[in-house]
């Protein structure tokens, strides 16, 4: 008869079981690593970052901004990712309309203020204005977290992949993670789906 151990964790938001692991895998090595934000009661694939102030993008312009995302804790059993858990407050938002939009992890300054610095990962966003209109205001960015890689700097600060946002007009754009860290020299700890992108079709 095979015996199992249950892996579960608890946080201020509740407890969750990650299921049973057969003991024939013993000795179990349990690692925790920074993981892009997914969620708690809902597992989502994107993060909607609300900017504290809108950015004005003019035709043909380029901007680079540094954002922060909450860091979830990725749990690994013998080197295999078995789940992730958020530490801080978790909120969600629908990007788009309730019938056609996509559920996202919501991030704004109120949520980030509650987190210690080691649970905030830096994301560098390069914005390219590829539209014919004079001006597009950007007040939110949807980041496909499924494609974000996680990195750690030599000081142990979490960093995520760089994001390229191409803006095609007031209502459309593409956000695409690049396979490079947002801060140079950071060491890769997690690589997710590298070719992921998200088409923002409900405006900025």
């Amino acid at each position, binding site marked *: 008869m095979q015996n199992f151990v249950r892996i579960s964790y608890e946080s201020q938001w509740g407890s969750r079981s990650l299921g049973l692991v057969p003991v024939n895998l013993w000795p179990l090595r349990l690692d925790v690593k920074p993981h892009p934000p997914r969620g708690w009661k809902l597992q989502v694939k994107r993060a909607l970052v609300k900017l504290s102030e809108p950015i004005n993008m003019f035709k043909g312009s380029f901007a680079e901004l540094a954002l922060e995302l909450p860091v979830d804790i990725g749990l690994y059993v013998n080197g295999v990712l078995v789940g992730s858990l958020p530490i801080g407050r*978790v909120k969600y938002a629908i990007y788009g309309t*309730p*019938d056609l939009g996509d559920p996202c992890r919501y991030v704004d300054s109120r949520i980030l203020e509650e987190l210690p610095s080691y649970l905030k990962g830096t994301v560098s966003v390069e914005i390219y204005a590829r539209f014919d209109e004079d001006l597009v205001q950007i007040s939110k960015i949807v980041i496909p977290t499924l494609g974000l890689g996680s990195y750690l700097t030599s000081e142990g600060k979490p960093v995520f992949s760089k994001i390229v946002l191409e803006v095609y007009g007031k209502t459309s754009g593409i956000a695409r993670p690049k396979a490079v860290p947002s801060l140079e020299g950071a060491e890769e700890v997690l690589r997710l789906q590298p070719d992921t992108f998200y088409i923002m079709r409900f405006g900025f």
Partner: protein
Amino acid sequence: MGFRRCEIIELTLAWLQGVLSDIVPRIRDVLKDYTSYLLAFTVFLLSIYVSGYVANKIMRSHSLRTSLRPEVLYNVALAARLFTIFLGVVLALSIAGVNIGNVLLAAGILGLVVGLAAQQTLGNLFAGIALLLEGRVKVGDTVRIGNDLGVVRAVGLMSSQIRLVSGELLTLPNSALMNSSLYNVSAPIARRGEVVVNISYDSDIDKAVEIIRRTLWNNELVLVEPEPMIIVEGLAESGVNIRVLYWAPTREFFAVRSTIVRDIKNALESQGIAIPYPHRVVLLKGETRSLLEESVSQNPQR
């Protein structure tokens, strides 16, 4: 003894030959008929077997790469099965020597009669086909029809079944489903919830609104976008009505609603905001009033 032995044998053989020449063609004819009947029956049985095989194949293709929904697949498999059996029956009848043309003509006339007699049934059938093609509802969708709320359990060719939240199984003819106002509440990702909170006239409205806003923010599943709305709606009989509108993921809607109502009540009470009972001021006049005053003065405890 006038006959010799060899003559008797010859006569017997001749008689036997005569009998056999008469019987053998008859037996052959009978056997021929029975063989064709047997063959027709075998073809019919084979068609049943093949129909089951075809239906099985179609149903199993669900686990492969097809994007068809299970209920559509089920009905396609059923149609394929019936069609295969129909082909088997036609083939079997033609093997048995039945004139198919006459049968089809009779079937046509019968179909006309049945069509006239069973308009409602056919209406349900076509409504079922339309429902399947249109994709208005899928198995597993939560729907509301009139006052009935439940989860779609099956979408058939003639009728559909909805498991109501009360546990009963509602079977609706497809034509009724097509003609009714149907709310598919599981199609959108999020649903809007609504709670009306009544606070006493003595309470601080701004403080109450702030407490409600904080309670919504503290609930993980209350969405930030679309933004919740808190409306001071009106002055009611016993207090001030505050309408709380929020959005929650459809899957978690009822759980969120329950939590929100409980949390708002607890938060308001803990902050000293009273949720009043209905109040009514009754004015008494004349004799009734004097009697009541007398009674109260005699026994102040009452």
